């Protein structure tokens, strides 16, 4: 066998983690209301399927757009050969207007500073290529989206150093945590090139406060080498107060108050995508916004490796250009998200499970199942996760896969299924919790204990051998990270 690259043969793409393994299990036994009512319900996929009808009705009302027509005339030929990495101007304009609208028009974006990419996945990777060398590092607050291990590290060779956040303050970023992360990087001889945050946060489902944002800007202010990337792909999913504050707003404020360093605006970059807000992950539409001309120039050329189809650009330029539609969509979508989140929260409460009280955005809740753990360890969390996956048949994401420092937290998505399915999932969970309390050996442990033995004998059903193998592999991988 010929040699392949280390990238092809290593596993730093992170796709062996439990986050992805859960999906694989789901694919083998997916729930279907009619055909497979005992199947696994997918609650680990952060997709927004609540507002498709709005999109479909718009498309039905605008058949010309899908037919490559503008004002009755066919523009197919222009689109067929359009592969300019600068992007379709009308689409970029419509996109920046949409982004501004989501931010209550408190900030505006210049279409010339937008770079289109095939999804936020590509946007994040491209920014890494543009801002850091191989072996340098970015600080990320934990818990963070498991895909970052692949998107930010795999092909770029950049390292991630976690900023440890804890439940004591609802996982907000603190100055000491930032400093600690920076020190940790220094001790590992890693040059820190900046901080990357997701705002609203995945998996927490919370928006960042003004003080957190100011803290971050203060942190990078004095070091000319440091950048701040704000991944704001969930900005349109904020369904309740506090309202969303973009880092661009803070920049503008500080600009207005003359408390600013001319360089800062060139070191803050925003990533956006239509996958979450519009529920169109399959369309592969992402964007980088930056005031740094060098970054825009480099990222634009690199976007050759992930251009957005001209058909899609045209379609969306029309859709997003329909201001009446976007206003209604944003409003209606948020309403539905709020309702659905409440359903999930209530359902969890009935099962005696609480979630992060500050949850005001996103397509998921950050759920506290610490009291269901046998011990305050990640082994216990993994065990609980497996029970929920195989016995309760719900695929949810364990905190360990998000690099959470505290065991027992899980991300549960609520926007990718029907109401009935959600209710069924909650019922299953309630039954599971009730049964465990009734003592099939599982001790409810509210106190923090330091037991290291995974108590396999407590489980209701016997789990097959390969699951044990699976668990030991996961355990090893967690230790590797």
């Amino acid at each position, binding site marked *: 066998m*010929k040699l392949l690259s280390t990238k092809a*043969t290593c596993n730093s793409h992170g796709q062996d983690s439990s986050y992805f393994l859960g999906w694989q299990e789901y694919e083998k036994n997916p729930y279907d209301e009619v055909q497979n009512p005992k199947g696994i319900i997918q609650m680990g996929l952060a*997709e927004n399927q609540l507002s498709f009808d709005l999109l479909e009705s718009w498309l039905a009302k605008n058949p010309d757009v*899908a037919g490559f027509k503008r004002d009755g005339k066919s523009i197919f030929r222009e689109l067929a050969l359009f*592969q300019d990495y600068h992007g379709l101007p009308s689409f970029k304009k419509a996109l920046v207007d949409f982004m501004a609208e989501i931010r209550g028009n408190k900030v505006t974006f210049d279409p010339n500073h937008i770079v289109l990419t*095939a999804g936020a*996945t590509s946007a994040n990777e491209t920014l890494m290529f543009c801002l850091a060398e191989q072996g340098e590092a970015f600080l990320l607050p934990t818990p963070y989206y498991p895909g970052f291990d692949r998107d930010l590290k795999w092909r770029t060779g950049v390292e991630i150093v976690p900023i440890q956040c804890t439940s004591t303050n609802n996982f907000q970023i603190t100055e000491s945590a930032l400093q600690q992360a920076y020190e940790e990087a220094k001790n590992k001889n890693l040059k820190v090139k900046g901080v990357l945050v997701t705002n609203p946060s995945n998996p927490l489902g919370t928006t960042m406060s003004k003080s957190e944002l100011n803290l971050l800007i203060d942190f990078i202010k004095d070091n000319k080498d440091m950048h701040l990337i704000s991944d704001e792909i969930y900005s349109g999913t904020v369904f309740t107060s506090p309202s969303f504050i973009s880092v661009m707003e803070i920049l503008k404020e500080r600009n207005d108050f003359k408390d600013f360093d001319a360089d800062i605006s060139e070191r803050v970059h925003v990533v956006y995508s239509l996958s979450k807000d519009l529920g169109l992950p*399959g369309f592969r539409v992402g964007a980088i916004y930056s005031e740094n001309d060098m970054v825009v120039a480099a990222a634009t050329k690199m976007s050759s490796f992930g251009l957005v189809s001209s058909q899609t650009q045209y379609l969306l330029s029309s859709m997003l250009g329909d201001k009446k539609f976007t206003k209604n969509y944003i409003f209606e979508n948020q309403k539905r998200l709020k309702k659905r989140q409440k359903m999930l929260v209530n359902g969890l409460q009935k099962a005696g499970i609480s979630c992060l009280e500050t949850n005001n955005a996103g397509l998921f809740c950050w759920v506290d199942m610490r009291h269901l753990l046998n011990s305050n360890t990640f082994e216990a969390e993994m065990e609980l996760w497996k029970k929920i996956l195989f016995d309760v048949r719900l695929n949810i994401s364990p905190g360990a896969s998000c690099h959470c420092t505290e065991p027992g937290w899980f991300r549960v998505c609520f926007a990718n299924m029907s109401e009935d399915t959600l209710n069924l999932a909650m019922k299953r969970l309630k039954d599971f919790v009730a049964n465990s309390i009734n003592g099939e050996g599982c001790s409810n442990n509210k106190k923090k204990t330091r037991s290291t033995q995974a108590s396999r004998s407590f489980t209701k059903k016997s789990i097959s051998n390969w699951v044990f193998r699976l668990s030991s592999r996961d355990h090893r991988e967690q230790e590797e990270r």
Partner: protein
Amino acid sequence: MTQTQKKPTNPKKTQSEPPSSSSSSSRTGMKLIVPLQAVVQGRNGFLLGSLIPLSLFYFLQLYLKRRRSENNNNTPSSPTTLLLPRSSSRSNLSSRGSISRVRVSKLANVVAKRDDSLYYVGIERVEKDPYHVKFNPNGIIQLGLSDNKLSLDLIEKWLVKNLEGSMMGNEDINLSINGIAPYQSFHGLNELKIALADFMHQVMGGSVEFDPSNMVLTSGATPAIEILSFCLADHGNAFLVPTPYYPGFDRDVRWRPGIDLIPVHCRSTDNFNLNITALEQAFSQARKRGVKVRGILISNPSNPVGNILTPDMLFSLLDFAEDKNIHIIADEVFAGSTYGSEEFVSIAEVLDSEYIDKSRVHIVYGLSKDLSIAGFRVGVIHSHNKTVLDAAKKMSRFSAISAPTQRLVTSMLSDKRFIQEYIETNRNRIRRVHDEFVDCLTKLGIKCAKSSAGMFCWADMSGLIRPYSEKGELELWEKFMSVAKINITPGSACHCIEPGWFRICFTTISFEEIPVVIDRIRKVVESCKSSD
């Protein structure tokens, strides 16, 4: 005094033979010579006798070192540099003078600066003053992009007839919950893979089958090449690539994967056909330099020449790869654009009939050329190597094809009757324009390399350039751009070793516009001849 005169030259002679000799070997030399001198000349001469040769020797070392480093900077196609050739030193200066003090990555610095390659410069110049038959008849005609405009009307007609069904409402394109791809399908919906496998089978002559499970779909052939580069080699390794080659390869392979491209020069005397001896030479030279060659990158049909690899040559190539235990990346995007008498044979076909290890051959394909839909971004990686496929599937997340486009294209490709008609008509139109164009060029005294496919001709204008060098070629290019107002791609942008060759694309104009182009070319030809 002959003895003293001899002595000072000794150290220089012995040390200058290997200019890169380490200082330790020189020191031992000095240790031998200096005391000898003292013995021969007596005490007074000792100091002079040793100081002068010593200082002369050190100055010589300094001079040789500086000359060596200058040489490195001045060899533009030196394979050891990973920077884009020719432009680095000049643009480093320009970026140093830039106002921003914000540090970005080295890669960003390299990528962001303005491209000096005339391939890209030409495209930019056209954008500023594009020709339009009605609105800008004096604009620059784009003959530097291999876009296919000849058969767009066929596709347009199909869309008008079929779009109702393929976009809205029914199962073909649905935006409902089921239509949205779960994460695995980023490497392409199965239906599209099946449709593409069928299309490739058809367009490549119907003699080789492609298995959809060996395919990973990407947003165009560009990311396909980059992904394969990431999979097959590490930063600092190299691929061999026959010249002249498509300028985009420099971007796809060097930028982010950090893999070098070692040119293997082909000559007009062979009609720029691939030469295994040249490959062997390039491989062993690389090995001597300590560079690890991991594969060969070829385009077949060739861009920019347009010739096709014969089955024999394909076998030889496979043997070579087998012998050296390296990969082959075959970019076959022009497979359907054949117009000559030669039949296209995909490397996949040759694989089938041999005992060769299939897992070393990877094919890149796309719909930008053969189906004219470059804007839709549809590319294919085809490989028998399971590890490569697995890695490529994960990497395709960064370059996935937009879902509505996947649906639309699946629909289109599944209309077998339309596709058959399209392939035939397109081929005929390309042939017609090619034959007419080459005929007209010949009448002007410009010969083209023998070609059987592609959307361009590889024209020999070496007779028109003064001097016979890259400089002369650049001047001619500028003449074509500013006087004749046509953008054609100079051979130097394609790393051609012989100056004076130009790639002229003829599928971006209509048959009726050929006389306009020929007229403009004639002006330049005549002005060149008159200035003799």
